[in-house]
Protein backbone atom coordinates (compact mmCIF):
# COMPACT_ATOMS: atom_id res chain seq x y z
CA UNK A 1 0.00 0.00 0.00
CA UNK A 2 2.90 2.31 0.66
CA UNK A 3 3.78 1.75 -2.97
CA UNK A 4 0.82 3.88 -3.90
CA UNK A 5 1.71 7.33 -5.11
CA UNK A 6 -1.41 9.00 -3.92
CA UNK A 7 -2.04 6.96 -0.85
CA UNK A 8 -3.96 9.58 1.01
CA UNK A 9 -6.28 10.19 -1.89
CA UNK A 10 -6.89 6.52 -2.35
CA UNK A 11 -7.82 6.09 1.27
CA UNK A 12 -10.17 8.97 1.18
CA UNK A 13 -11.89 7.36 -1.76
CA UNK A 14 -11.94 4.02 -0.06
CA UNK A 15 -13.32 5.60 3.07
CA UNK A 16 -16.06 7.35 1.14
CA UNK A 17 -16.87 4.18 -0.71
CA UNK A 18 -17.46 2.18 2.36
CA UNK A 19 -19.18 5.01 4.14
CA UNK A 20 -21.80 5.30 1.45
CA UNK A 21 -22.86 1.72 1.80
CA UNK A 22 -21.78 0.42 5.16
CA UNK A 23 -22.05 3.38 7.46
CA UNK A 24 -25.19 2.47 9.39
CA UNK A 25 -24.00 -1.02 10.23
CA UNK A 26 -20.42 -0.15 10.89
CA UNK A 27 -21.39 2.79 13.03
CA UNK A 28 -23.53 0.76 15.34
CA UNK A 29 -22.65 -2.89 15.31
CA UNK A 30 -19.27 -2.92 13.58
CA UNK A 31 -17.42 -0.66 15.96
CA UNK A 32 -16.55 -1.33 19.56
CA UNK A 33 -18.42 0.87 21.98
CA UNK A 34 -15.22 2.65 23.03
CA UNK A 35 -14.95 4.32 19.64
CA UNK A 36 -18.50 5.41 19.64
CA UNK A 37 -18.06 7.13 22.98
CA UNK A 38 -14.74 8.84 22.51
CA UNK A 39 -15.46 11.14 19.58
CA UNK A 40 -18.63 12.36 21.23
CA UNK A 41 -16.65 13.74 24.09
CA UNK A 42 -14.42 15.64 21.69
CA UNK A 43 -16.97 17.26 19.44
CA UNK A 44 -18.50 20.06 21.44
CA UNK A 45 -21.50 18.02 22.37
CA UNK A 46 -22.33 16.97 18.82
CA UNK A 47 -23.47 13.37 18.55
CA UNK A 48 -21.24 10.85 16.88
CA UNK A 49 -23.50 10.34 13.87
CA UNK A 50 -23.09 13.94 12.83
CA UNK A 51 -19.40 13.64 12.16
CA UNK A 52 -18.55 14.77 8.66
CA UNK A 53 -18.90 11.66 6.54
CA UNK A 54 -15.47 11.78 5.01
CA UNK A 55 -13.95 11.93 8.45
CA UNK A 56 -15.40 8.64 9.43
CA UNK A 57 -13.11 5.76 8.70
CA UNK A 58 -14.63 2.31 8.67
CA UNK A 59 -12.71 -0.16 10.82
CA UNK A 60 -11.37 -2.15 7.90
CA UNK A 61 -9.92 0.92 6.28
CA UNK A 62 -8.01 1.98 9.38
CA UNK A 63 -5.08 -0.33 8.85
CA UNK A 64 -4.89 0.78 5.24
CA UNK A 65 -5.24 4.34 6.37
CA UNK A 66 -2.29 4.11 8.73
CA UNK A 67 -0.08 2.72 6.02
CA UNK A 68 -1.12 5.35 3.54
CA UNK A 69 0.37 8.20 5.53
CA UNK A 70 4.04 8.82 5.82
CA UNK A 71 3.74 10.02 9.39
CA UNK A 72 2.00 12.70 11.43
CA UNK A 73 3.09 15.58 9.19
CA UNK A 74 1.64 13.83 6.20
CA UNK A 75 -1.61 13.25 8.04
CA UNK A 76 -1.76 16.87 9.15
CA UNK A 77 -1.17 18.08 5.61
CA UNK A 78 -3.98 15.86 4.44
CA UNK A 79 -6.34 17.30 7.04
CA UNK A 80 -5.32 20.84 6.21
CA UNK A 81 -5.75 20.33 2.47
CA UNK A 82 -9.11 18.75 2.92
CA UNK A 83 -10.30 21.79 4.82
CA UNK A 84 -8.92 24.05 2.09
CA UNK A 85 -6.86 25.75 4.75
CA UNK A 86 -3.65 27.59 4.06
CA UNK A 87 -0.72 26.11 5.94
CA UNK A 88 0.27 29.59 7.00
CA UNK A 89 -3.10 30.17 8.50
CA UNK A 90 -4.04 26.93 10.18
CA UNK A 91 -6.95 26.82 12.50
CA UNK A 92 -5.10 24.89 15.16
CA UNK A 93 -8.08 23.96 17.25
CA UNK A 94 -10.00 22.58 14.28
CA UNK A 95 -7.02 20.60 12.99
CA UNK A 96 -6.20 19.38 16.48
CA UNK A 97 -9.77 18.20 16.91
CA UNK A 98 -9.70 16.24 13.66
CA UNK A 99 -6.26 14.84 14.33
CA UNK A 100 -7.33 13.63 17.76
CA UNK A 101 -10.36 11.97 16.27
CA UNK A 102 -8.22 9.98 13.93
CA UNK A 103 -5.80 9.07 16.69
CA UNK A 104 -8.49 7.99 19.10
CA UNK A 105 -10.25 6.01 16.40
CA UNK A 106 -7.05 4.20 15.61
CA UNK A 107 -6.34 3.58 19.26
CA UNK A 108 -9.82 2.34 19.87
CA UNK A 109 -9.34 -0.18 17.12
CA UNK A 110 -6.20 -1.29 18.96
CA UNK A 111 -4.00 -0.79 15.95
CA UNK A 112 -0.44 -0.12 16.83
CA UNK A 113 0.25 3.55 16.49
CA UNK A 114 3.74 4.84 15.78
CA UNK A 115 5.08 6.94 18.62
CA UNK A 116 5.49 9.90 16.26
CA UNK A 117 1.73 10.27 16.02
CA UNK A 118 1.40 10.56 19.78
CA UNK A 119 4.22 13.08 20.01
CA UNK A 120 2.44 15.18 17.43
CA UNK A 121 -0.79 14.92 19.38
CA UNK A 122 0.98 16.33 22.40
CA UNK A 123 2.52 19.11 20.33
CA UNK A 124 -0.83 20.09 18.91
CA UNK A 125 -2.40 20.13 22.34
CA UNK A 126 0.37 22.37 23.58
CA UNK A 127 0.02 24.81 20.71
CA UNK A 128 -3.70 24.93 21.20
CA UNK A 129 -3.35 25.74 24.87
CA UNK A 130 -0.72 28.39 24.25
CA UNK A 131 -2.98 30.06 21.74
CA UNK A 132 -5.66 30.27 24.36
CA UNK A 133 -3.38 32.16 26.73
CA UNK A 134 -3.84 35.91 26.88
CA UNK A 135 -1.28 37.68 24.71
CA UNK A 136 0.14 39.88 27.46
CA UNK A 137 1.74 36.98 29.22
CA UNK A 138 4.22 36.41 26.44
CA UNK A 139 4.91 40.09 25.95
CA UNK A 140 8.24 39.84 27.72
CA UNK A 141 9.74 37.61 25.09
CA UNK A 142 9.50 38.43 21.47
CA UNK A 143 5.95 37.75 20.53
CA UNK A 144 6.07 34.50 18.61
CA UNK A 145 3.13 32.79 17.03
CA UNK A 146 2.93 29.47 18.89
CA UNK A 147 2.13 27.83 15.56
CA UNK A 148 5.32 29.07 13.94
CA UNK A 149 7.39 25.96 14.51
CA UNK A 150 4.65 23.60 13.39
CA UNK A 151 4.01 25.67 10.28
CA UNK A 152 7.70 25.64 9.47
CA UNK A 153 7.82 21.88 9.79
CA UNK A 154 4.71 21.40 7.71
CA UNK A 155 6.03 23.60 4.95
CA UNK A 156 9.39 21.91 5.07
CA UNK A 157 7.80 18.49 4.86
CA UNK A 158 5.42 19.52 2.11
CA UNK A 159 8.16 20.84 -0.12
CA UNK A 160 10.06 17.57 0.11
CA UNK A 161 6.92 15.57 -0.36
CA UNK A 162 6.47 17.54 -3.57
CA UNK A 163 10.16 17.12 -4.42
CA UNK A 164 9.77 13.35 -4.07
CA UNK A 165 6.91 13.46 -6.56
CA UNK A 166 9.02 15.56 -8.89
CA UNK A 167 11.91 13.14 -8.65
CA UNK A 168 9.55 10.26 -9.32
CA UNK A 169 8.29 12.07 -12.41
CA UNK A 170 11.75 12.58 -13.88
CA UNK A 171 12.33 10.49 -16.99
CA UNK A 172 13.97 7.40 -15.61
CA UNK A 173 16.00 4.58 -17.08
CA UNK A 174 14.16 1.31 -17.59
CA UNK A 175 10.85 3.11 -17.35
CA UNK A 176 10.84 6.14 -19.64
CA UNK A 177 13.98 5.47 -21.58
CA UNK A 178 16.50 2.74 -22.17
CA UNK A 179 20.12 3.06 -23.05
CA UNK A 180 20.85 2.21 -26.65
CA UNK A 181 23.54 -0.23 -27.60
CA UNK A 182 24.73 -2.15 -30.61
CA UNK A 183 26.59 -5.40 -30.93
CA UNK A 184 30.27 -5.57 -31.72
CA UNK A 185 31.51 -7.32 -34.83
CA UNK A 186 33.58 -10.36 -33.85
CA UNK A 187 35.66 -8.87 -31.09
CA UNK A 188 37.44 -11.02 -28.61
CA UNK A 189 35.35 -10.58 -25.50
CA UNK A 190 35.73 -12.40 -22.24
CA UNK A 191 38.75 -10.56 -20.99
CA UNK A 192 36.45 -7.65 -20.21
CA UNK A 193 34.53 -9.73 -17.72
CA UNK A 194 35.31 -9.13 -14.07
CA UNK A 195 37.20 -11.97 -12.45
CA UNK A 196 35.55 -13.56 -9.44
CA UNK A 197 37.23 -15.69 -6.86
CA UNK A 198 35.22 -18.49 -5.27
CA UNK A 199 36.16 -17.15 -1.86
CA UNK A 200 34.56 -13.82 -2.73
CA UNK A 201 31.39 -15.61 -3.71
CA UNK A 202 31.28 -17.52 -0.44
CA UNK A 203 31.94 -14.41 1.58
CA UNK A 204 29.05 -12.71 -0.17
CA UNK A 205 26.82 -15.63 0.71
CA UNK A 206 27.96 -15.41 4.28
CA UNK A 207 26.79 -11.81 4.27
CA UNK A 208 23.30 -12.80 3.18
CA UNK A 209 23.19 -15.58 5.71
CA UNK A 210 24.02 -13.18 8.46
CA UNK A 211 21.03 -11.06 7.53
CA UNK A 212 18.51 -13.75 6.64
CA UNK A 213 18.45 -16.53 9.07
CA UNK A 214 18.50 -19.40 6.62
CA UNK A 215 19.73 -21.72 9.32
CA UNK A 216 16.44 -21.83 11.07
CA UNK A 217 15.47 -24.53 8.63
CA UNK A 218 17.24 -27.78 9.34
CA UNK A 219 16.22 -29.15 6.03
CA UNK A 220 18.49 -26.65 4.32
CA UNK A 221 21.51 -27.80 6.24
CA UNK A 222 21.08 -31.40 5.34
CA UNK A 223 20.18 -30.79 1.75
CA UNK A 224 22.74 -31.80 -0.81
CA UNK A 225 23.47 -29.27 -3.48
CA UNK A 226 23.49 -31.93 -6.16
CA UNK A 227 19.76 -32.31 -5.56
CA UNK A 228 19.15 -28.67 -6.28
CA UNK A 229 21.38 -28.86 -9.31
CA UNK A 230 19.41 -31.83 -10.56
CA UNK A 231 16.15 -29.98 -9.91
CA UNK A 232 17.29 -27.23 -12.28
CA UNK A 233 18.33 -29.83 -14.81
CA UNK A 234 14.99 -31.59 -14.74
CA UNK A 235 13.10 -28.34 -15.06
CA UNK A 236 15.03 -27.31 -18.12
CA UNK A 237 14.77 -30.79 -19.64
CA UNK A 238 10.97 -30.93 -19.38
CA UNK A 239 9.28 -29.85 -22.60
CA UNK A 240 6.69 -27.10 -22.18
CA UNK A 241 3.10 -28.25 -21.89
CA UNK A 242 3.94 -31.85 -22.65
CA UNK A 243 4.39 -34.92 -20.53
CA UNK A 244 7.69 -36.71 -20.39
CA UNK A 245 8.10 -40.33 -19.47
CA UNK A 246 9.40 -40.76 -15.95
CA UNK A 247 12.22 -43.09 -17.04
CA UNK A 248 13.60 -40.64 -19.60
CA UNK A 249 15.17 -38.63 -16.81
CA UNK A 250 17.30 -41.46 -15.49
CA UNK A 251 20.50 -42.44 -17.20
CA UNK A 252 22.17 -45.78 -16.80
CA UNK A 253 25.67 -44.32 -16.78
CA UNK A 254 25.08 -42.42 -13.59
CA UNK A 255 24.56 -45.55 -11.64
CA UNK A 256 22.66 -46.00 -8.41
CA UNK A 257 23.71 -42.69 -6.87
CA UNK A 258 22.52 -40.78 -9.95
CA UNK A 259 19.13 -42.46 -9.73
CA UNK A 260 18.81 -41.50 -6.09
CA UNK A 261 19.73 -37.90 -6.77
CA UNK A 262 17.28 -37.65 -9.66
CA UNK A 263 14.56 -39.22 -7.58
CA UNK A 264 15.17 -36.89 -4.65
CA UNK A 265 15.15 -33.93 -7.01
CA UNK A 266 11.79 -35.02 -8.41
CA UNK A 267 10.32 -35.34 -4.95
CA UNK A 268 11.56 -31.89 -4.05
CA UNK A 269 10.12 -30.46 -7.26
CA UNK A 270 6.78 -32.04 -6.49
CA UNK A 271 6.93 -30.69 -2.97
CA UNK A 272 7.68 -27.19 -4.21
CA UNK A 273 4.84 -27.64 -6.69
CA UNK A 274 7.04 -27.09 -9.68
CA UNK A 275 6.20 -30.35 -11.44
CA UNK A 276 3.39 -32.85 -11.36
CA UNK A 277 3.62 -36.58 -11.71
CA UNK A 278 0.79 -38.39 -13.45
CA UNK A 279 -0.06 -42.03 -13.80
CA UNK A 280 -3.04 -42.48 -16.08
CA UNK A 281 -3.89 -46.02 -15.00
CA UNK A 282 -2.80 -48.39 -12.31
CA UNK A 283 0.59 -49.90 -13.13
CA UNK A 284 0.64 -47.72 -16.25
CA UNK A 285 3.48 -45.49 -17.37
CA UNK A 286 4.38 -42.61 -15.12
CA UNK A 287 4.72 -39.18 -16.69
CA UNK A 288 6.09 -35.86 -15.54
CA UNK A 289 5.00 -32.41 -16.52
CA UNK A 290 6.29 -29.00 -15.57
CA UNK A 291 3.77 -26.85 -13.75
CA UNK A 292 5.31 -23.92 -15.52
CA UNK A 293 5.48 -22.29 -18.90
CA UNK A 294 8.22 -21.95 -21.51
Amino acid at each position, binding site marked *: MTESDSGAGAVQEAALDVTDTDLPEAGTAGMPSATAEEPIAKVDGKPFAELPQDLYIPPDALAVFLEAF*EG*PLDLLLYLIRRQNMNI*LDIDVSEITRQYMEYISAVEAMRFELAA*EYLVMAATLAEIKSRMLLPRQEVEEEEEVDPRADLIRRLQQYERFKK*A*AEDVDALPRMER*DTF*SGSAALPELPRGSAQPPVDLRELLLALQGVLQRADLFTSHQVEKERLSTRERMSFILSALPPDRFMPFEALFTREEGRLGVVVTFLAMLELVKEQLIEIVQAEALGAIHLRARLSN
Partner: protein
Amino acid sequence: MNEENLKRIQNIVEAALLAAGRPLTVDQLRDLFEDHERPPRQVLEHVLMLLDESCMGRGFELKKVASGYRFQIRQDVAPWVRRLFEEKPQRYSRATLETLALIAYRQPITRGEIEDIRGVTVSSNIIRTLLEREWVRIVGHKDVPGRPAMYATTRQFLDYFNLSSLDELPPLAEIRDLEEIGREIEQEIQAEIQFDTPDGAVQEAADAEGVSELSPDTSPDANLSPETTTFH
Protein backbone atom coordinates in the same frame (compact mmCIF):
# COMPACT_ATOMS: atom_id res chain seq x y z
CA MET B 1 39.93 19.28 -40.18
CA ASN B 2 38.36 18.28 -43.48
CA GLU B 3 34.86 17.01 -44.00
CA GLU B 4 35.86 13.40 -44.49
CA ASN B 5 37.96 13.31 -41.36
CA LEU B 6 35.18 14.84 -39.33
CA LYS B 7 32.74 12.24 -40.61
CA ARG B 8 35.17 9.51 -39.62
CA ILE B 9 35.51 10.84 -36.09
CA GLN B 10 31.74 11.13 -35.89
CA ASN B 11 31.32 7.50 -36.88
CA ILE B 12 33.89 6.32 -34.36
CA VAL B 13 32.26 8.31 -31.57
CA GLU B 14 28.83 7.06 -32.54
CA ALA B 15 30.01 3.45 -32.66
CA ALA B 16 31.83 3.76 -29.35
CA LEU B 17 28.79 5.19 -27.58
CA LEU B 18 26.66 2.37 -28.93
CA ALA B 19 29.20 -0.29 -28.09
CA ALA B 20 29.84 0.96 -24.57
CA GLY B 21 26.21 0.84 -23.48
CA ARG B 22 27.10 3.32 -20.74
CA PRO B 23 27.84 7.05 -20.73
CA LEU B 24 31.27 8.12 -21.98
CA THR B 25 32.97 11.44 -21.26
CA VAL B 26 34.62 13.61 -23.88
CA ASP B 27 37.97 12.52 -22.47
CA GLN B 28 37.12 8.85 -22.65
CA LEU B 29 36.06 9.36 -26.25
CA ARG B 30 39.30 11.18 -27.07
CA ASP B 31 41.24 8.30 -25.54
CA LEU B 32 39.96 6.02 -28.27
CA PHE B 33 42.29 7.77 -30.71
CA GLU B 34 46.01 7.35 -30.92
CA ASP B 35 48.13 10.33 -29.97
CA HIS B 36 48.80 11.49 -33.52
CA GLU B 37 45.15 11.39 -34.59
CA ARG B 38 43.45 12.50 -31.38
CA PRO B 39 40.96 15.29 -32.10
CA PRO B 40 40.97 18.38 -29.85
CA ARG B 41 38.19 18.75 -27.34
CA GLN B 42 36.34 21.37 -29.39
CA VAL B 43 36.27 19.10 -32.40
CA LEU B 44 34.90 16.29 -30.32
CA GLU B 45 32.26 18.54 -28.84
CA HIS B 46 31.34 19.69 -32.33
CA VAL B 47 31.07 16.06 -33.43
CA LEU B 48 28.74 15.35 -30.51
CA MET B 49 26.56 18.21 -31.63
CA LEU B 50 26.46 16.80 -35.16
CA LEU B 51 25.52 13.42 -33.74
CA ASP B 52 22.75 14.97 -31.72
CA GLU B 53 21.40 16.57 -34.90
CA SER B 54 21.66 13.32 -36.79
CA CYS B 55 19.22 11.74 -34.35
CA MET B 56 16.51 14.29 -35.02
CA GLY B 57 13.23 12.57 -35.71
CA ARG B 58 14.63 9.12 -35.01
CA GLY B 59 13.80 6.66 -32.26
CA PHE B 60 16.79 7.56 -30.12
CA GLU B 61 18.69 10.62 -28.98
CA LEU B 62 22.05 11.66 -27.63
CA LYS B 63 21.80 12.66 -24.01
CA LYS B 64 24.30 14.27 -21.70
CA VAL B 65 24.13 12.88 -18.17
CA ALA B 66 26.46 13.16 -15.20
CA SER B 67 28.90 10.46 -16.34
CA GLY B 68 29.02 11.62 -19.94
CA TYR B 69 27.12 11.13 -23.17
CA ARG B 70 24.94 8.22 -24.05
CA PHE B 71 22.45 7.19 -26.68
CA GLN B 72 19.06 6.51 -25.28
CA ILE B 73 15.60 5.65 -26.51
CA ARG B 74 13.27 8.62 -26.95
CA GLN B 75 10.57 8.82 -24.35
CA ASP B 76 7.74 8.81 -26.88
CA VAL B 77 8.59 5.31 -28.09
CA ALA B 78 9.37 3.94 -24.60
CA PRO B 79 5.88 2.43 -24.10
CA TRP B 80 6.46 0.08 -27.04
CA VAL B 81 10.07 -0.66 -26.20
CA ARG B 82 9.16 -1.53 -22.62
CA ARG B 83 7.24 -4.56 -23.91
CA LEU B 84 10.58 -6.13 -24.75
CA PHE B 85 11.27 -6.66 -21.09
CA GLU B 86 9.51 -9.16 -18.97
CA GLU B 87 9.74 -7.20 -15.77
CA LYS B 88 7.67 -4.15 -15.11
CA PRO B 89 9.63 -1.04 -14.24
CA GLN B 90 10.25 -1.00 -10.54
CA ARG B 91 8.14 1.30 -8.42
CA TYR B 92 9.48 2.95 -5.33
CA SER B 93 7.51 3.65 -2.18
CA ARG B 94 6.79 7.20 -1.11
CA ALA B 95 9.03 6.71 1.90
CA THR B 96 11.91 5.73 -0.38
CA LEU B 97 11.29 8.61 -2.77
CA GLU B 98 11.00 11.15 0.04
CA THR B 99 14.23 9.91 1.56
CA LEU B 100 15.93 10.04 -1.82
CA ALA B 101 14.60 13.55 -2.46
CA LEU B 102 15.89 14.75 0.91
CA ILE B 103 19.32 13.30 0.22
CA ALA B 104 19.34 14.83 -3.25
CA TYR B 105 18.28 18.31 -2.19
CA ARG B 106 19.85 18.52 1.25
CA GLN B 107 23.08 16.58 0.90
CA PRO B 108 25.15 15.85 2.87
CA ILE B 109 22.44 14.82 5.30
CA THR B 110 22.23 12.33 8.16
CA ARG B 111 19.45 9.86 8.74
CA GLY B 112 18.44 11.81 11.85
CA GLU B 113 18.07 15.00 9.83
CA ILE B 114 15.91 13.17 7.29
CA GLU B 115 13.75 11.87 10.12
CA ASP B 116 13.40 15.37 11.57
CA ILE B 117 11.98 16.70 8.33
CA ARG B 118 9.80 13.71 7.51
CA GLY B 119 8.58 13.39 11.09
CA VAL B 120 8.97 9.60 11.06
CA THR B 121 11.78 7.13 11.39
CA VAL B 122 13.54 6.03 8.23
CA SER B 123 13.79 2.27 7.97
CA SER B 124 17.18 0.68 7.40
CA ASN B 125 15.78 -1.08 4.37
CA ILE B 126 15.19 2.19 2.61
CA ILE B 127 18.75 3.32 3.17
CA ARG B 128 20.06 -0.06 2.14
CA THR B 129 18.00 -0.06 -1.04
CA LEU B 130 19.32 3.38 -1.97
CA LEU B 131 22.91 2.40 -1.17
CA GLU B 132 22.60 -0.79 -3.13
CA ARG B 133 21.15 0.90 -6.18
CA GLU B 134 24.21 3.13 -5.83
CA TRP B 135 22.00 6.19 -5.90
CA VAL B 136 23.40 7.39 -2.59
CA ARG B 137 26.64 6.87 -0.75
CA ILE B 138 28.16 7.72 2.60
CA VAL B 139 30.38 10.76 2.26
CA GLY B 140 31.51 11.02 5.86
CA HIS B 141 30.38 11.03 9.43
CA LYS B 142 29.02 14.04 11.21
CA ASP B 143 31.05 15.27 14.12
CA VAL B 144 28.29 14.93 16.67
CA PRO B 145 27.67 12.22 19.27
CA GLY B 146 27.20 8.87 17.59
CA ARG B 147 29.04 10.11 14.48
CA PRO B 148 26.09 9.43 12.18
CA ALA B 149 26.80 8.75 8.51
CA MET B 150 26.16 11.57 6.09
CA TYR B 151 24.57 10.63 2.78
CA ALA B 152 24.88 12.20 -0.64
CA THR B 153 23.70 11.24 -4.11
CA THR B 154 25.99 9.67 -6.70
CA ARG B 155 26.67 10.11 -10.39
CA GLN B 156 24.70 6.92 -10.98
CA PHE B 157 21.68 8.63 -9.44
CA LEU B 158 21.98 11.52 -11.87
CA ASP B 159 22.54 9.13 -14.78
CA TYR B 160 19.54 7.06 -13.87
CA PHE B 161 17.25 10.06 -13.64
CA ASN B 162 18.55 11.64 -16.82
CA LEU B 163 20.28 14.54 -15.14
CA SER B 164 23.70 15.92 -15.90
CA SER B 165 24.01 17.75 -12.60
CA LEU B 166 22.09 18.42 -9.40
CA ASP B 167 21.23 21.84 -10.79
CA GLU B 168 18.84 20.13 -13.15
CA LEU B 169 16.68 18.79 -10.34
CA PRO B 170 13.22 20.34 -10.37
CA PRO B 171 13.27 23.45 -8.16
CA LEU B 172 12.15 23.08 -4.59
CA ALA B 173 8.99 24.85 -3.57
CA GLU B 174 9.65 28.04 -1.68
CA ILE B 175 9.20 28.34 2.03
CA ARG B 176 7.49 31.43 3.33
CA ASP B 177 7.37 32.44 6.91
CA LEU B 178 4.68 34.19 8.81
CA GLU B 179 6.60 37.42 9.11
CA GLU B 180 7.09 37.62 5.39
CA ILE B 181 3.39 37.11 4.80
CA GLY B 182 2.64 39.85 7.30
CA ARG B 183 4.99 42.23 5.51
CA GLU B 184 3.46 41.41 2.16
CA ILE B 185 -0.04 42.04 3.30
CA GLU B 186 1.06 45.34 4.74
CA GLN B 187 2.76 46.33 1.51
CA GLU B 188 -0.29 45.39 -0.49
CA ILE B 189 -2.43 47.57 1.65
CA GLN B 190 0.07 50.35 1.26
CA ALA B 191 0.15 49.92 -2.51
CA GLU B 192 -3.58 50.16 -2.62
CA ILE B 193 -3.50 53.37 -0.72
CA GLN B 194 -0.91 54.76 -3.10
CA PHE B 195 -2.97 53.64 -6.06
CA ASP B 196 -5.71 55.86 -4.78
CA THR B 197 -3.49 58.93 -4.92
CA PRO B 198 -3.75 60.82 -8.21
CA ASP B 199 0.00 61.41 -8.47
CA GLY B 200 1.54 59.19 -11.22
CA ALA B 201 5.08 59.45 -9.88
CA VAL B 202 4.14 57.79 -6.67
CA GLN B 203 2.42 55.06 -8.61
CA GLU B 204 5.59 54.38 -10.60
CA ALA B 205 7.59 54.07 -7.46
CA ALA B 206 5.08 51.62 -6.11
CA ASP B 207 5.33 49.57 -9.30
CA ALA B 208 9.08 49.44 -9.13
CA GLU B 209 8.84 48.29 -5.59
CA GLY B 210 6.34 45.69 -6.65
CA VAL B 211 8.87 44.19 -9.06
CA SER B 212 11.59 43.89 -6.51
CA GLU B 213 9.11 42.34 -4.14
CA LEU B 214 8.41 39.62 -6.62
CA SER B 215 11.92 38.35 -6.90
CA PRO B 216 12.14 36.58 -3.55
CA ASP B 217 9.19 34.57 -4.74
CA THR B 218 11.21 32.73 -7.29
CA SER B 219 13.00 29.99 -5.48
CA PRO B 220 16.76 30.37 -5.09
CA ASP B 221 17.14 26.66 -5.85
CA ALA B 222 15.67 27.13 -9.27
CA ASN B 223 18.82 27.57 -11.25
CA LEU B 224 17.82 25.67 -14.30
CA SER B 225 14.54 24.51 -15.64
CA PRO B 226 14.27 20.75 -15.91
CA GLU B 227 13.72 21.01 -19.64
CA THR B 228 17.24 22.19 -20.32
CA THR B 229 18.31 20.84 -23.62
CA THR B 230 21.16 18.49 -24.12
CA PHE B 231 23.46 21.12 -25.49
CA HIS B 232 23.82 24.66 -24.43
